[in-house]
């Protein structure tokens, strides 16, 4: 479809501003731009239709099943959007006098109280704008803690090889050396490997539990104890919190600090790649190291972005928390786990789970053998799902499973949807044995065929230009 620039007509526009009611003041010539920016010139009708056309070529949670593992694509309630758009929130300046922003502080305080209770933490910041940003903040808490004690020998952060790439990247951004430890055959932390890795140079451990293969690590107390014993701290990556919220708390597992993805676990929409919100919680002894806005607080703290964070996202998450409440929070977690296990069971007999046991909120299929048998890859299966109107699962992650497809159905899918999804997987399993070539070419009915990614990387075209 045409780009917005290809629809632009010179001198078209929307009528938005009144004439200026005071005298214009020219910029000095030396400071003035020589040519106007080549922005589109559109009527409001053109604009409305352009974006309506674009949104038809997007699959959202509202369109259909979205079992993208580790992303927790649950339904995003509309009331949450409505609350965040209230002028009483949207119109508040971050530097307005404190006595005029009591409502904003009530939102932050209430969300903090609920989330600390859910995670077993003592204090919290909402400044981080996303999960990776939360990781950065959390690991900086660990760094400040060691620095404040003059404990300068702690240069290493331990990360299991099943971890998301953000974990090691975060440790590097915080100046730590990354120690990757292999996973045990069951996908959990290899205790012997951990024992060999910890020492008086250990700053901390970054871990998610349930882990990235969807298994709750039953040795978790032993793991956090081993790290604490050598003077390190334990960081909980909250990517998988949806499985356990209200059931078991990271604080009780021995973690010292944690980030949550409000845009996963607490139902705020992903917006095609943000805005998220990465609330970071910590135990009491780390609270003094939490970030703050210098301009808002006047105090010297670390700071990971301007002002108080993605506040309107917190409004959405709080609305969700208040809706679910003490009963609904664990119910959501249990239903997420139930849905994952039900779907895994329904697929059984076709694609093989990487770990054949009760899973948490997500599970990983291992297609290595299947690929040898049929020549059809995890990518082919993923692309074939698109023809059924299902968003593909996360592919080729975690790295410890080759030909991985990771499915996370979430609690907001009905049994019929899960039955239907399992049926689609069964059909594709059969199709791969009958007509593998057809699957190599999938998708067949999407807006585009498979894009040439190599060409995009070798010959980068990153903006539109007049030809």
């Amino acid at each position: 479809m045409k780009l917005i620039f290809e629809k632009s007509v010179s001198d078209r526009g929307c009528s938005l501003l009144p004439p200026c009611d005071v005298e214009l003041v020219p910029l000095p010539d030396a400071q003035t731009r020589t040519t106007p920016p080549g922005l589109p010139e559109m009527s409001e009708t053109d604009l409305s239709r352009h974006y309506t056309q674009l949104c038809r070529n997007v699959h959202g949670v509202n369109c259909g099943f979205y079992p993208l593992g580790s992303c927790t694509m649950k339904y995003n309630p509309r009331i949450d959007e409505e609350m965040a758009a209230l002028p009483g929130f949207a119109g508040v300046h971050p530097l307005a006098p404190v006595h005029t922003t009591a409502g904003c502080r009530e939102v932050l305080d209430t969300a903090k109280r609920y989330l600390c209770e859910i995670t077993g933490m003592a204090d919290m910041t909402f400044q981080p704008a996303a999960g990776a940003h939360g990781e950065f903040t959390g690991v900086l808490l660990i760094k400040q803690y060691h620095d404040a004690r003059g404990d300068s020998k702690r240069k290493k952060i331990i990360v299991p090889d099943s971890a998301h790439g953000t974990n090691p990247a975060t440790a590097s951004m915080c100046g730590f050396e990354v120690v990757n430890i292999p996973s045990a055959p069951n996908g959990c932390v290899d205790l012997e490997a951990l024992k060999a890795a910890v020492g008086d140079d250990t700053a901390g451990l970054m871990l998610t539990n349930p882990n990235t293969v969807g298994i709750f690590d039953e040795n978790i107390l032993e793991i956090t104890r081993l790290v604490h014993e050598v003077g390190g701290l334990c960081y909980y990556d909250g990517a998988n919190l949806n499985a356990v919220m209200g059931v078991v708390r990271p604080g009780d597992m021995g973690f010292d600090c944690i980030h949550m993805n409000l845009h996963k676990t607490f139902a705020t929409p992903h917006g095609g790649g943000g805005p998220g919100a990465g609330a970071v919680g910590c135990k009491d002894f780390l609270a003094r190291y939490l970030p703050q806005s210098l301009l808002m607080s006047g105090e010297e703290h670390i700071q990971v972005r301007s002002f108080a964070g993605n506040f309107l996202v917190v409004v959405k998450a709080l609305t969700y928390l208040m809706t679910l409440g003490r009963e609904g929070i664990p119910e959501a977690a249990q239903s997420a786990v139930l849905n994952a296990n039900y779907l895994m069971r329904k697929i059984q007999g076709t694609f093989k789970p990487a770990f054949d046991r009760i899973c948490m909120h997500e599970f990983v299929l291992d297609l290595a053998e299947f690929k040898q048998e049929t020549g059809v890859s995890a990518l082919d299966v993923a692309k074939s799902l698109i023809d059924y109107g299902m968003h593909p699962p996360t592919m080729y992650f975690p790295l410890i499973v080759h030909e991985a497809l990771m499915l996370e159905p979430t609690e907001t899918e009905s049994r019929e949807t899960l039955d239907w999804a399992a049926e689609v997987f069964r059909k594709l399993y059969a199709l791969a044995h009958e007509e593998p070539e057809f699957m190599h070419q999938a998708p067949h009915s999407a807006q585009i065929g498979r894009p040439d990614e190599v060409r995009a990387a070798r010959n980068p075209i990153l903006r539109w230009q007049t030809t």
Partner: protein
Amino acid sequence: MGSYVPSTRAERQEMLEAIGLKKERDLYRDVPEHMLLDRPLDVPSGMSELEVSRAVSAMAAKNRVFSTVLRGAGAYDHYIPSIVKYIPAKEEFLTAYTPYQAEMSQGVLQSIFEYQTMICELTGMDVSNASVYDGATAAAEAAAMCRDRKRRVTLVSAAVHPDVINTIRTYCYGTGDTLRIVPIKNGRTDLTALKEMLTADVASFYVQQPNFFGGLEDAEALGQAVHEAGAMYVMGCNPIALAILKTPRDCGADIAVGEGQPLGLPLGYGGPYLGYMTTLSKHMRKLPGRIVGETVDSKGERAYVLSLQAREQHIRREKASSNICSNEALCALTAAVYMAAMGPGGMAEAAKQSMAKAHYLASGLCEIPGVSLRYSGEFFHEFVTDLPRTQEALQALEQADILGGLPVEGGILWCATEKVSKEALDQTIRMVKEVLAQ
């Protein structure tokens, strides 16, 4: 209580049985029994939608929203066209994830590609990423882009937003790199001091245009000095000002970043906002974050994908220069709709009117005995006045539903946008005059 779980109790029991379990607790049999929470969460019971709506609206009602906002300092109250609110609210845009599966996300990918183009047009730069968290993180990521083995020092002008400086400081603390602040003279970066500080270990210098005090920097001269010392020049520019202001490209910037909030995003008590981030072609592969590129599909048709992913953390892990993945895509979409709705003419109009109204306010205030501009020289839509009895003046304005400027260093940092009427400006001037006459 509220719930978004569609399956009924009976269905859930059947599903449990289908997987060979009896009760929901059995789902957690890997969790050691003593770790399970043995009490209900200490949070209130869930509520119906109507109750929640009342409760959250009551919180919003405890905030004060001013009809006239004369405060900026990093968050600007520009007019947001109606269509700019409706388009990003479309559920498909709202509820999609990062466009990993290009075949199912061409709409998101194309919208980001268009955003990247518009930001390049605004800044004059070659390449834009799909956004980062906000202007402060964009500045910090830009500083990180510039460092190499020999050049580890980051210079930042003291006329930069304090939150931006503190964020860069924090990122430098992470990697163990040095940040030095270049002093100001008459509210602008001191060029002579900068030249002295540009030692061989300096990786980059960051300046804000217009700066925190509203003043226009001599950005070309600063850039020249930076390049003479072999360092990289990073500019943080207000995107509305860029509709009329000399582009960072023309000022010699290697990297141009900024806070995108003025492009149609509400004040929202500080977020979500949008960090835009651009550079020259030669630094393309150092740019962090998501980038959308054009390619062709299997049928040879034009298509868009997330591109240059070899830079990113999911491939490079600990060797990646940034850990960013989720950014502010929906805010970037909002900004793109804003720029398209305003067009080049509308954006220039908003910039000119903001500047005109700020100057009208400044000259009106400075006619009051005891009030003067703290710094001489050109300014855009913000300026600092020295003004006795700052608190009283601001309180009087507050009672008239006007959010006055921000108290800074004994003076007031004022801001005006196209949204403020001449009437409101006259009223402001009159009220300040009355307070000071008492």
